[in-house]
């Protein structure tokens, strides 16, 4: 019962906000929207408690029958197991905190209630995504979060750039969605069902490891995941998506929606296990993305874009983990990442607000003195991101790195990738910190620091989670083991093990030390940024553009590449054929007929003798036809 109501609190709130719109006062809107999400959060905690007491650790609630595909039923059924439990706790828990923060952040906006309505709708869609018991319902949530993401990125739609970013996010993810849709069709046509539990079961009964169909289905699902989670090659939308209000970036583009791809792969692990090749693609995509994003983060000037690339990179870790078969590690990282990345974004939001919507790092500096609380919160987020021992990030990331070397689908090369990534993470984190908080103040405006309580308290809670999130490790592990263990073991029993060799013992130490090396390296390399220099003028620290850093700044040129390879040709084709070639072909008959008409009219000269002559010619012609 509690479960079935879970998505509907925010839905009701959405309707209230949309229908009453601007007639609601700020307070009313806040109470309704935040209250609804909090209600969801509370009920999800209760439900998770219940889950632990149930034997098979699965709760399903059928709401109604949606439609039937031949003999298979596609229902509005909510399905709660360990994995979705983790997800709903993140979605509703973090969601509630971010809602609260957003209420403060967006207080001045005239379309406040519309904003909160979208946020609520997003929570609904996200809950359906993680609770759907079949892939179609999952797809509904999947598209729903996409739409909300579109709406929220383009919330300030009057600026064409924002609208553009929203459109880009929607269309690029849509490419992935299409791949996923095809995967669904393929699953239906081969297995005849779209219920996730049934699929996993049927697939493992009918297919051997390495089956062609499993390969293609897994690959297409991966396509969907890659789109949503901003991984290579569909990663380009995420940095632009930062055009949205910062709470949106925190909720959608850091904590929840972008990790939907990770959730999808984890959810469909039964299929992926049947196709080790795709598993290693997952791993490689994760590895390459985390490096790419790390490098790109190094060159960014916009504080939110740094965080966006960092998100991409962290999701790369999750992918890497999934690819290596470290399911629960990946999901755990998803959770801890949600904590610290939400914290980072929200704190960044506060800073941006304090600087009158200034997001350029090179226009910040020296904030540590002016905003001590925000600085320390941000620092907490960063150390969790860097994964210094003891923080939540440490637990999850070390676990991932640990699992790589020995995995048959990942291996040593990817381990080194992960290590390099960890190094990059600490370097760009330090660069960010130095630029924003240390050094000389380069701000053009007065810094204002009159934050209301609702913009502070969520941050404290998140900071706590970011620091102590590691404590959840056991709980998550227990929850997830129910989901993964049995299927993994059965698949492994039927095929070769994913673990090939035991990893050497020095790996662990390298992994722990790497972040420190990064910090030390940055301390010296970015010395300029951190020093409160006496000799240099205020504006000495500037972004030095050269080809190389430009290349990184622009996300390694993917945007330009796609622009040239796909967007421009499509637009060109569209423009070229604006007048519709088929129409022109058909309408050319009009021209043809007219040509004949001209000729025939010309023959109608009006001269009697000419008419008589044609009579004679016609006679001769007809006689000729018949007689010859």
């Amino acid at each position: 019962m509690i479960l079935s109501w879970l998505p509907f609190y925010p839905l009701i709130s959405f309707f209230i906000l949309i229908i009453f719109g601007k007639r609601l006062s700020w307070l009313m809107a806040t109470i309704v929207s935040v209250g609804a999400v909090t209600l969801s959060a509370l009920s999800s905690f209760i439900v998770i408690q219940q889950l632990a007491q149930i034997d098979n650790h699965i709760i399903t609630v059928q709401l109604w029958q949606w439609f039937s595909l031949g003999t298979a039923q596609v229902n509005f059924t909510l399905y709660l197991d360990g994995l979705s439990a983790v997800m709903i706790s993140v979605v509703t828990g973090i969601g509630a905190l971010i809602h609260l923060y957003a209420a403060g952040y967006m207080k001045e906006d005239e379309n406040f209630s519309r904003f909160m309505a979208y946020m609520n709708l997003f929570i609904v869609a996200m809950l359906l995504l993680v609770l759907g018991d079949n892939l179609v319902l999952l797809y509904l949530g999947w598209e729903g979060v996409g739409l909300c993401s579109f709406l929220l990125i383009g919330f300030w739609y009057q600026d064409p750039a924002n609208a553009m970013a929203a459109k880009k996010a929607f269309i690029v993810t849509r490419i992935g969605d299409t791949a996923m849709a095809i995967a669904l069709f393929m699953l239906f046509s081969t297995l005849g069902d779209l219920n996730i539990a049934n699929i996993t079961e049927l697939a493992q009964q009918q297919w051997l490891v390495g089956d062609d169909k499993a390969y293609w289905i897994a690959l297409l699902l991966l396509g969907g995941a890659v789109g949503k989670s901003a991984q290579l090659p569909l990663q380009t939308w995420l940095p632009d998506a930062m055009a949205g209000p910062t709470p949106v970036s925190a909720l959608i583009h850091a904590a929840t929606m972008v990790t939907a791809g990770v959730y999808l792969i984890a959810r469909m692990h039964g299929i992926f296990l049947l196709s080790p090749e795709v598993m290693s693609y997952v791993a490689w995509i994760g590895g390459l993305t985390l490096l790419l994003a790390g490098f790109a983060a190094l060159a960014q000037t916009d504080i939110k874009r740094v965080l966006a690339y960092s998100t991409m990179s962290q999701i790369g870790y999750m992918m890497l983990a999934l690819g290596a078969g470290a399911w629960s590690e990946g999901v755990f990282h998803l959770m801890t990442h949600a904590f610290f990345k939400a914290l980072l974004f929200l704190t960044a939001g506060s800073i941006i607000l304090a600087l009158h919507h200034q997001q350029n790092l090179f226009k910040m500096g020296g904030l540590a003195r002016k905003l001590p609380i925000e600085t320390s919160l941000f620092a907490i987020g960063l150390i969790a991101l860097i994964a210094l021992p003891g923080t939540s990030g440490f637990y999850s990331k070390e676990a991932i790195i640990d699992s790589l070397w020995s995995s048959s689908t990942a291996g040593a090369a990817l381990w080194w990738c992960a290590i390099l990534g960890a190094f990059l993470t600490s370097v760009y984190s330090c660069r960010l910190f130095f630029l924003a908080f240390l050094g000389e103040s380069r701000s053009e405006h007065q810094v204002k620091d009159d934050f209301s309580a609702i913009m502070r308290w969520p941050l404290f809670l998140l900071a706590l989670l970011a620091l102590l999130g590691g404590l959840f490790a056991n709980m998550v592990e227990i929850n997830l083991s129910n989901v993964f263990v049995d299927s993994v073991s059965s698949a492994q029993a039927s095929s070769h093990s994913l673990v090939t060799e035991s990893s050497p013992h020095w790996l662990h130490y390298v992994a722990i030390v790497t972040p420190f090396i990064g910090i030390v390296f940055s301390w010296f390399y970015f010395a300029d940024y951190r020093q409160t220099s006496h000799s240099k003028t205020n504006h000495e620290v500037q972004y030095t553009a050269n080809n190389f850093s430009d290349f990184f700044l622009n996300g390694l040129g993917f945007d330009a590449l796609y622009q040239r390879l796909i967007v421009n040709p499509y637009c060109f084709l569209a423009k070229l054929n604006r007048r519709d070639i088929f129409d022109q072909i058909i309408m050319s008959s009009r021209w043809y007929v007219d040509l004949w008409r001209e000729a025939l009219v010309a023959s109608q000269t009006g001269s009697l003798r000419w008419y008589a002559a044609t009579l004679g010619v016609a006679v001769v012609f007809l006689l000729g036809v018949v007689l010859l």
Partner: protein
Amino acid sequence: MIALPFEHILILATTLFLIGFVGVISRKNTLFILMSLEVMLNAVGIAFIGAGSVWQQADGQVMFILILTLAAAEVALGLALLIRLQRKFQSLDIDILNKLRG
């Protein structure tokens, strides 16, 4: 009396007919056109009489008389129109009449 072969009569009739037709096409003067029409009709008359004599029937001659009647009626109408042409345009050139076209 030597019976003329039908072919000869036909050749004569057809030749006359063609002469008449060419006259209709090439003459500009309306009067001559009407005369050429007469030639054509009479050529047909010859053909009918010839054919009648081949089959030893009166039908051909009957037809000839009918044709004569037609020719008379035609000329009567033609001349009436010709007078109006003359009055309206002071000319008998048939090519004046080309206002209706296209």
